[in-house]
């Protein structure tokens, strides 16, 4: 075979390989897009029907914005939205610290009582919501702790959040954070940490310089999961909250007794808008960030 023919054959092969790779990449993008479409499909429907000119969301009856005006005038709903955000943020932060520490212990050590802690950490995930809700209600009632309100000024809004609700949310969030962080830890190479330990000889610095940055995707994942669970919880919040305190899911659950009105959709759309603005901000901040640091790209 002449040299020319050989090089031609080779370049054709590499071109084919390149093409194949591009095709694969294209399909991959398509898959990602479809995945996100699946996630956003009901959300689009939800937003459309928030403009429905009818008491129900069962059929389209024309365009109106009056559900938004209605929502804005409903102080109870707005207050319950702030309550939800407050409970979700506080319980996420608390459970994030506690859960991450627990994950480190469970994944990095062998010790007496490990099996028991394993069980204790999984139980809040396994227990049926209603059983946890009722047992917490009885517990708070008999122990006399928890129902006092935490008076907080949250972005200028005055809230009175019963400690019982936050305590309950943290109790289930710890486990979810721990599971996600453990998944990250199990995959991480310990060699790097050991090398760092030899280098710095200070566990504190090793943790902040090496372990923590590597752990970050797990911590972020755990935080997002905890926040979402907390925002969405109905059963436990319903039973552990005292009189006069409502989160958004508690409001919505009682509202659907009279059918799903577009007002509920309007509240959801508002939250959607709010989160999209947050993401846009994070994008703008993220642009200035360091390529290798997940911390900057995350928020």
């Amino acid at each position, binding site marked *: 075979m002449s040299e020319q023919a050989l090089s031609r054959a080779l370049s054709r092969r590499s071109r084919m390989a390149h093409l194949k790779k591009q095709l694969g990449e294209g399909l991959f993008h398509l898959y990602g897009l479809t995945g996100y479409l699946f996630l956003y499909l009901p959300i689009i429907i939800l937003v459309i029907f928030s403009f429905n000119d*009818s*008491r*129900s*969301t*069962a*059929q389209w*009856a024309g365009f109106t914005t009056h559900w938004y005006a209605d929502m804005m005038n409903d102080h*109870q709903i707005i207050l319950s939205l702030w309550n939800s955000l407050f409970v979700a943020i506080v319980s996420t932060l608390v459970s994030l610290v506690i859960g991450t520490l627990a994950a480190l212990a469970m994944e990095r050590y062998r010790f007496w009582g490990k099996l028991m802690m394993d069980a204790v950490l999984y139980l809040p995930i396994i227990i049926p919501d209603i059983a946890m809700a*009722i047992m917490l*209600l*009885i*517990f*708070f*009632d*008999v*122990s006399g702790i928890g*129902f006092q309100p935490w008076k907080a000024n949250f972005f200028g809004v005055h809230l009175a959040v019963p400690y019982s609700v936050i305590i309950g949310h943290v109790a289930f969030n710890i486990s979810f954070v721990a599971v996600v962080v453990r998944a990250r830890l199990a995959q991480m190479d310990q060699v790097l940490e050991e090398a760092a330990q030899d280098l710095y000889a200070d566990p504190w610095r090793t943790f902040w310089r090496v372990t923590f940055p590597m752990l970050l995707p797990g911590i972020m994942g755990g935080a997002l999961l905890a926040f979402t669970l907390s925002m969405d919880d109905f059963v436990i919040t*319903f*039973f552990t909250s*005292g*009189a*006069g305190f*409502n989160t958004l899911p*508690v*409001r919505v*659950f*009682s*509202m*659907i*007794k*009279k*059918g*799903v009105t577009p007002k509920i959709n309007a509240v959801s759309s508002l939250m959607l808008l709010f989160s999209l603005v947050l993401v846009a901000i994070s994008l703008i901040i993220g642009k200035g960030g360091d390529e290798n640091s997940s911390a900057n790209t995350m928020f």
Partner: protein
Amino acid sequence: MKRYTLLLLSVLLVLGLLLSACAKATPTAAPQPEKTEQPQATEAPATEVQPAKEIVFYNWSEYIDPEIYTLFEKETGIKVVEDNFSSNEELLAKLQGGATGYALIVPSDYTVKIMIDQNMLAPLDQDKIPNLKNLAERFRNLYYDPGNKYCIPYQWGTTGIGYLDGQVDKPESWSVLFDPDPNAPYYGRMTMLDDAREAFAAALIYLGYDANTTDEKQLEEAKQALIRAKAALSGYDSDTYEDLLASGENLMAHGWNGDFLQAQEENENIAYTIPKEGGVIWVDNVCIPATVTPEQKLAAEMFLDFILRPDIGAMISEFNYYATPNKAAEANLDADFLNDPAVYPPQKVLDRLQFIKPVGDAEANYQRMWDEVKAAP
């Protein structure tokens, strides 16, 4: 050594808490002595007591015109905050679990009976509620609360069948559900209430039995009827069935009269009927839980008196389309509304309506059989 102590301390603390929790758990389970004493305590110093400035009204969602709160606050200076629940069972479980702080609650008839039996309600001071005289005669001696000692009836209604007029014939009998015709247009386009007692009541009434029977054979028969109905249902639904009817997804639904009347706003073809075998009648009531403070109780009684006024009673019915037990309020209501048989059934239909009553330990039986219906293919 510090860690040792810390560990030991935390373990001790947990143990201590555990023990105290168990020890204290006893009184809640026994018939709650501290709670039964409270009503008496609230009555004694009634003269010096000032009404609370703010009370929480635990109500069903969209059951009262919010304007009423504004009017009440203008008149008395007392602010009413509304919290919502969505079923009698939730309300009962939450209060039994020890939730407090509610000055007014709205349980339905059979739940009132349970609550009175368990000393969960505070007796009303009828002197504080002069407007009680506005109540219609037939709502003064209901089986669950004779003499209105604990509650005032709030609204009442019936359970029957809603349907799309023009698309299906008026269902004259419950047989449309319990002996369904596979070729009928409504086959597969019906819903039943997702509620064990309501569903069994419908089946038992169809079979000609008492809606509160504890007879195993009758219940078994009703269960079989419910399983037959299941094949013809698109689902069990207690929340959005009226919307699904309005949109034309379903053609017939087992449900509460006021819901269908509200849905007429979306679709005027919706009609409501009580089949010839009869149906269920229910009364929602406003009551005061035994856990209130004397100040809250006084404010709550003022509110009860307020909603018993003729003009306010009419406002409530205009808002939620349910019949009012307030005789004096009828003067302020539309004649069309008062003559609507879907709201105020004629006497011969009323005679065929039954209350759902608590059945004691047989509740477990009902639930077990309902589970069997749900698990049936």
